[in-house]
């Protein structure tokens, strides 16, 4: 993924310059993934695209944010790790990496 990602990006997590005030966090909850995307003022992203890539750099999910604090999407991919990104336009972009241990139940 961004294959290096699970291996390498864990060492260099979300870049300040790339976030432009957007903060993304993701977590597993049962058979769903929770995705939080908010601006620096704490307001949840109202319009934005969630894209999830697996360890092979394949897009395994794509869909809009709900506008709520947390958007829940189906659990996708496998235990090797996931890259969860949100693009809210105008350079408002950020990502979170779910490691194998994050995905383990």
């Amino acid at each position, binding site marked *: 993924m961004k294959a290096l990602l699970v291996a390498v990006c*864990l*060492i260099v*997590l*979300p870049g*300040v310059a790339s*976030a432009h005030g957007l*903060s993304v*966090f993701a*977590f597993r909850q049962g058979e769903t993934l929770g995705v939080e995307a*908010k601006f620096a003022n704490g307001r949840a992203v109202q319009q934005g695209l969630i894209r999830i890539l697996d360890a092979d750099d394949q897009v395994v999910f794509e869909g809009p944010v709900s506008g709520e604090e947390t958007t829940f999407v189906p659990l996708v991919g496998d235990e090797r790790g996931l890259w969860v990104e949100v693009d809210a336009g105008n350079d408002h972009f950020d990502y979170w990496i779910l490691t194998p241990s994050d995905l383990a139940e």
Partner: protein
Amino acid sequence: MKKLLLGTVLAGLSLQPAAAHFGMIIPSDPIFGGNEDRMISATFGFAHPFEAEGMVLEAPLAAQVTVNGASTDIDLTAATVLDAPGFVADIEIARPGAHILSMVPQPYWEPAEDVFIQHFTKTYVAAYSDDSGWDAMLGFPVEIEPLSRPFAQWAGNMFQGVVTQNGEPVPFAEVEVEFYSPEGALDISDELFVTQSVKADGNGVFSYVAPWGGWWGFAALMEGPDTIAFDGEEKAVEQGAVIWVNFEEAP
């Protein structure tokens, strides 16, 4: 005569700096961008920070990390901190947002002041470029509410906070401010520079401009409601609301 002269000279040359006691929590990263383990380390101590002189920190009654209103106990490991017993810890930072590291130490008997001292101590760590929760409070009996974001501050910025006791502002509270100089005391012309002192206004709001980068401790000291029996006498307990803030030199 010699004794008289010596006494006069020593009176003019104070040999003991008027160092203030500070509970200390110093994290490895005031702003955490991530690493392989998503862990930071932190040092828990009790010290005269300007002189880097440690004092004994007994096992705290509580040590926690709080984020989004949820608190988790921190596993402390005994360690030598500034040449005195203290603690270190590795702390998982698993999500974005301001993480508050805090401790409630045991009351410490200070014979020189004839009081027990208990410093409710905290510091805020920003994680993954998210500052949400930077003004969150822990509900300590005495606590400083940050009015300025307590991280990502430039040296020269003004830091403001509200001194509270039982959640209420404390008018005209006195706040001691001290720089943590890990290599030992800086060269100063008078001991009065060791501990800066400011007073809050009528709303409990105090302000301080950190003149250079590094860790600065702010301690508002108030007499607590309880006493502790010691040697057959009831002794007052000084409660300190302590916050540590990192200021960064301009790039």
